């Protein structure tokens, strides 16, 4: 599944929020079928970076390329093109509360892809089945568990046929016993060859899937490398130190 086509390229992105320099010149390249994992302390700029990539927060400086096309943040056409190719998963799901699981997945197919209702419904049901929620299609967000909500939001993003998915701490808002079902869905995506960038604190899980860890601090990527390299026994990487601290707090093994 891996090949060398570059799906996403970010060059020197800078972003200020509230007078603070949140992103301080971040660059990265993602090839097709790869999973890059962003780790680092809160406030390092992981979420901001993900939101800059699909222009939910327009970068102050720097460039984003999707499949070699340079995105002009001022062009509505470019943004629509970009957002149909980039799927986003949020920490707190952001499901549409007045729509059923099926309608949540279907709404953008109708409004954005202009599919007719029947085709959109079929597609939505397929995607729900893919995340194991076919039997919950008629339930509203208030009737779903956190893990189920996040799986609906994955189905909603997948239905748009994205080239790349951005996952912003997809399990951080979940109760510990619900994390597994969401991670399983993400593992299936990785196995199916989906290109992804994921911010997460699930080091153990992501080290088995990630092609590269990007360690962020103070708006910069200060370390990058394969999980094996960065977490090798005796490595004195910042990543190692951070993961050791994390596992102290959560009891999770850092690799």
């Amino acid at each position, binding site marked *: 599944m891996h090949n060398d086509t570059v799906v996403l390229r970010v060059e020197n992105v800078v972003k200020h929020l509230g007078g603070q320099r949140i992103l301080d010149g971040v660059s990265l390249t993602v090839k097709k079928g790869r999973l890059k994992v962003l780790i680092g302390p809160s406030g390092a700029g992981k979420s901001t970076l993900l939101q800059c990539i699909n222009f939910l927060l327009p970068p102050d400086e720097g460039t984003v390329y999707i499949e070699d096309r340079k995105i002009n943040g001022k062009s509505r056409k470019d943004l*629509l093109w970009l957002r149909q190719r980039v799927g*986003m998963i*949020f920490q707190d799901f952001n499901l549409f*509360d*007045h729509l059923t699981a099926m309608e949540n997945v279907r*709404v953008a197919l109708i409004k954005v892809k202009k599919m007719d209702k029947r085709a959109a419904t079929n597609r939505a049901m397929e995607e729900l089945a893919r995340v194991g929620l076919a039997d919950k299609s008629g339930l509203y967000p*208030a009737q779903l568990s956190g893990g189920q909500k996040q799986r609906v939001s994955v189905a909603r993003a997948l239905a748009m046929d994205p080239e790349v998915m951005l996952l912003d701490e997809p399990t951080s808002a979940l109760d510990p016993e619900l994390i597994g079902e969401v991670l399983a869905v993400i593992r299936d995506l990785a196995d199916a060859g989906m290109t992804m960038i994921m911010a997460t604190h699930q080091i153990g899980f992501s080290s088995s899937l990630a092609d590269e860890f990007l360690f962020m601090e103070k708006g910069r990527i200060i370390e990058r490398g394969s999980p094996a390299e960065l977490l090798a026994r005796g490595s004195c990487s910042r990543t190692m130190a951070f993961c050791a601290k994390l596992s102290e707090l959560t009891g999770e093994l850092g690799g």
Partner: protein
Amino acid sequence: MNEALTFAFERVVPGLNVGLWASVGIIVPAALLGVVIGILAGTIRVYGGVWLRRVTNWYVALFRGTPLVVQLYFWYFALPYVHIGGVSLVLTPMQAAVIGFALCSGAYQSEYIRGGLLSIKRGQLLAAQALGITPVNSILFIVLPQAFRRALPGCGNEIIYLIKYSSLASIITVNELTGVGRGIAKATFQNTEVYVIVGLYYLVLVTLAGWVLRFAEHRLAIPGFEVKNS
């Protein structure tokens, strides 16, 4: 007692029934228009550009800040003297009442809608944006349906108010319930009987409206948006 009943059914009720239709003819269009104006103004006040927002805020300040009686006098008695480019607008009493009530009601409704809109978490707009849904479609299909459900109890309350302040239409010569009642009371000197019956008419109207509103709340109820203790 028998005499009073005979008086009520022979003199008061037939007259009031005519007035009732005038009242309903004001209340229904004014309530519907008020809700539409409220949704438009409320949405603009939250999501509009700077100038649109400013203009709708002035509208609300003006119509909430002046007495309704003065507004009605303006639409009926003053408007004919306002010449713009040599043209002036003369409204019938019914038109003046409907416009006056709708604009006043809309100002209040916009507050309820605005509150409803502000209660919807911003994350849903971000998610819609990330899916490529346009801002206008996000507001129309994602935020407003939720905000309206949240605002419905307040909007219903405003409609109940409207039913009662519709009695003010009598001061710009509309022969609605209160106006007709006042006429009968003056002609017969039976103030007590007449005004008690007029009051009962309004009570019935408000009760009916309450049922309709509760029915609407049930029809629109969605898990997570139930209206509790209604």
